[in-house]
């Protein structure tokens, strides 16, 4: 899952320092050297499937002599959870084994040449703004089939399969072009986030309808507080998500599923238009255009200063801002208010999604070790440790029990209970059709600033979606639920 919290300013600078060298007429073509030596012969590209043996201690038959290489995206979660925890678990399981640990923000830049050149690391945390195109990697057979991982006995209870110890959404989201190729490790809750202590102090209650929402906007305005803001720099896709989720609340998850499947005129659907319209209206009446020029950190600091009431983001926000958070601030999640009065999903619906991709390289030196590493990550010990280190919940059922969770995460867990089956689905075209998603994040600023109408926004995105649909260079994917 890429969110702006993944990049700090310093990391960004470093990235620019590096990319600037490649700019110019030959921009980026350094990577092109990688084509040299590849023959024109179409290679059969089956993804390697490794049989799981009956031995619950070592179902994949890992050879302790073989070293394991793990590459971690060191963004919002850092890399200590891998270095000090998961890799230690692996070392403990196979005495004397060597584990090579690499942390980077440049997953794609570093690993693309290595994969193509046949020198793939075994476990890859494919995350961040430079993450790799999984469909393209899958087409080349670079990704190991994780079906055997899901069918392997779980570390904690050999009678259970791994697939029965994790959130079902993981299995749904594991599919890349029809095969189980990617493990999503974390669970996040997305909706609007606010300061529960401020609400308690002012005696405000959460708005359940759009009228209450705007009424609160008026009240807050008198106190010099903005009802709503999102970062126009680096994080406009927070608002893009927010609008998509609002559309799903109004018209049901089918709205997002149709958009993901590139169904004709999916963007012009009435719920989508309505969602864009109400949010553009909020921005015009209760927003401040200065935020179009602020990045996520600046905006989040403003919220910590109680200058912004609601902020559209996910549950990682609490850990991201932990260092700056004053004592009188307590993060809590607020569902999107009822828009039409007859929304398909009742008030309380929030988005709960899995994220943070891990893949195992099929053509690496030690794919068995890679699968075993993921199996250890999915053990209770591995998952609980991750939650302790990052204050984020994993997909492993019950692994966070007994861990002292911060207030925001608790509020998210309670909100999920209340939402019950009314869980808003994630928009998967973010990973499938990045060009469409990026275009959306650009256009959302334009429509929120009032330079185009919501109808034009929908029409523009439809045009782009049609272009992606026609482009045979883009691998198409579909989802049914």
């Amino acid at each position, binding site marked *: 899952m890429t969110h702006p919290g993944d990049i700090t*300013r310093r990391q*960004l*600078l470093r990235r*620019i*320092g590096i*990319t*600037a060298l*490649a*700019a*110019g*007429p*030959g*921009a*980026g*073509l*350094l*990577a*092109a*050297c990688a*084509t*040299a030596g*590849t*023959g*024109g012969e*179409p*290679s059969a590209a089956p993804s390697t499937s490794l049989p799981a043996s009956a031995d619950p201690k070592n179902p994949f038959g890992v050879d302790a002599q073989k070293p394991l290489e793990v590459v971690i995206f060191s963004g919002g979660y850092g890399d200590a959870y891998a270095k000090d925890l998961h890799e230690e678990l692996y070392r403990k399981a196979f005495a004397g084994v060597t584990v090579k640990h690499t942390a980077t923000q440049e997953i*794609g*830049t570093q690993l*693309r040449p290595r*994969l*193509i050149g046949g020198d793939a690391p075994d476990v890859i945390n494919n995350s961040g*703004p*430079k993450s*790799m*195109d999984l469909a*393209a*990697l899958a*087409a*080349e057979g*670079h990704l190991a089939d994780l079906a055997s991982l899901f069918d392997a006995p779980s570390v904690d209870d050999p009678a259970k399969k791994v697939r029965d110890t994790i959130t079902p959404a993981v299995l749904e989201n594991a599919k890349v072009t029809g095969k189980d190729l990617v493990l999503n490790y974390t669970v996040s809750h997305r909706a609007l986030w606010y300061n529960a202590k401020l609400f308690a102090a002012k005696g405000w209650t959460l708005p359940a309808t759009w009228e209450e929402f705007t009424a609160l906007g008026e009240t807050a305005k008198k106190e010099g507080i903005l009802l709503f803001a999102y970062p*126009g*720099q*680096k994080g406009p896709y927070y608002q893009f998500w927010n609008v998509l989720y609002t559309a799903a609340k109004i018209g049901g998850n089918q709205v997002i599923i149709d958009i993901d499947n590139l169904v004709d005129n999916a963007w012009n659907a009435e719920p989508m238009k309505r969602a864009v319209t109400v949010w553009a209206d909020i921005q015009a009446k209760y927003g*401040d*255009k*200065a935020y*179009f*020029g*602020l990045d996520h950190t600046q905006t989040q600091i403003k919220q910590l200063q109680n200058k912004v009431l609601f902020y559209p983001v996910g549950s990682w926000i609490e850990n991201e801002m932990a260092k700056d958070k004053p004592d009188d601030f307590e993060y809590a999640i607020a569902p999107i208010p009822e828009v039409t009065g007859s929304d398909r999903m009742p008030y309380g619906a929030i988005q709960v999604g899995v994220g943070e991709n891990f893949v195992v390289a099929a053509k690496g030196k030690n794919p068995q070790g890679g699968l075993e590493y993921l199996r250890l990550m999915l053990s209770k010990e591995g998952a609980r440790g991750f939650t302790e280190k990052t204050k984020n919940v994993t997909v492993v059922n019950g692994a966070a029990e007994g861990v002292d969770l911060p207030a925001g995460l608790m509020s998210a867990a309670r909100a999920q209970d209340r939402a019950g089956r009314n869980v808003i689905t994630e928009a998967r075209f973010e990973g499938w059709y*990045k*060009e469409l998603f*990026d275009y959306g*994040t*650009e256009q959302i*600023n*334009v429509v929120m*600033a009032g*330079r185009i109408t919501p109808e034009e926004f929908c029409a523009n995105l439809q045009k782009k979606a049609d272009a992606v649909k026609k482009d045979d*260079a883009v691998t198409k994917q579909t989802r049914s639920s």
Partner: protein
Amino acid sequence: MERLRRYGFVAGFLAVPLVLYTVFVISPYVQAFQLALTSWNGYSSIVRYVGLDNFGRLFQDEVFWRALRNHGILLLVLPLVTILIALVFAFLLNLGGGTRGAGMKGVWGSNFYRTVFFFPQVLAVAVVGVLFQAVYRPDEDGVINGVLARFGVDPVGWLIEPDLALWSIIAVMVWQAVGFYVVLFSAGMAAIPKDYFEAAALDGANRLRLFFSITLPLLRDTVQVGWIYLGIAAFDGFALIQVLAGDKGEPDGATTILPITIYNTAFSYQKVGYASAMGVALFFLTVTFAVLTLRTTRRERVEL
């Protein structure tokens, strides 16, 4: 034998740089031309040739044309403004003080100014970017908007208004470039024999007349070089725009330029073939600019 020794000596010096240059500069360029004819996605082991399809697509690509338009504006404004400012400063620093004793002097404190002008040149582009993010910040915490707020002026969205953003960025580019050209032109001016100025001054020419009748004509070659450098700089701007405006040339693509479009197309959208086609287009644009500038400004050398 004599010749072998002589050429062997020269070749020995040239071999290493030539090999490095071929491997790291020439060969990627050649490969870009090859890739521009393919639909390669950066991962595939099968490289499919699509002829000139990529170039056909370029002509219909809205983003490409927007980037070209921005390059056009940069190409006109950046060299002109930078050279004008740099010439004025260089003149003041070197000759602006008039004749004092023997020869021409700069204005009082010119050594100090010279250093100050050069400061921005020393800063890395990324630092300049972050610095100007604070300067241009669109609320009252911004340096400019903070001052404006004292006078009761509403904050201006320097980088978030589509009509303003590119100009704000050009201002930063000019700010950063001026120092270097002041030094370049100062060196050019130092090479002009002092007698010319003295003679002209004796004949009663004022400073304006000195500048236009002596300094400028004799600096022509230097100015031309500066023009080409700045023109090529106008085709880049990648890092600055990436930090200041955003990685898609925000807002609304108002600040998008080819290097940014190429980078996104190749590395975010995995269309390496198409991105190479853009790279090839950029290559020809840059070369055309340099050749045109050299041709149109060529004339007889002034003999000193």
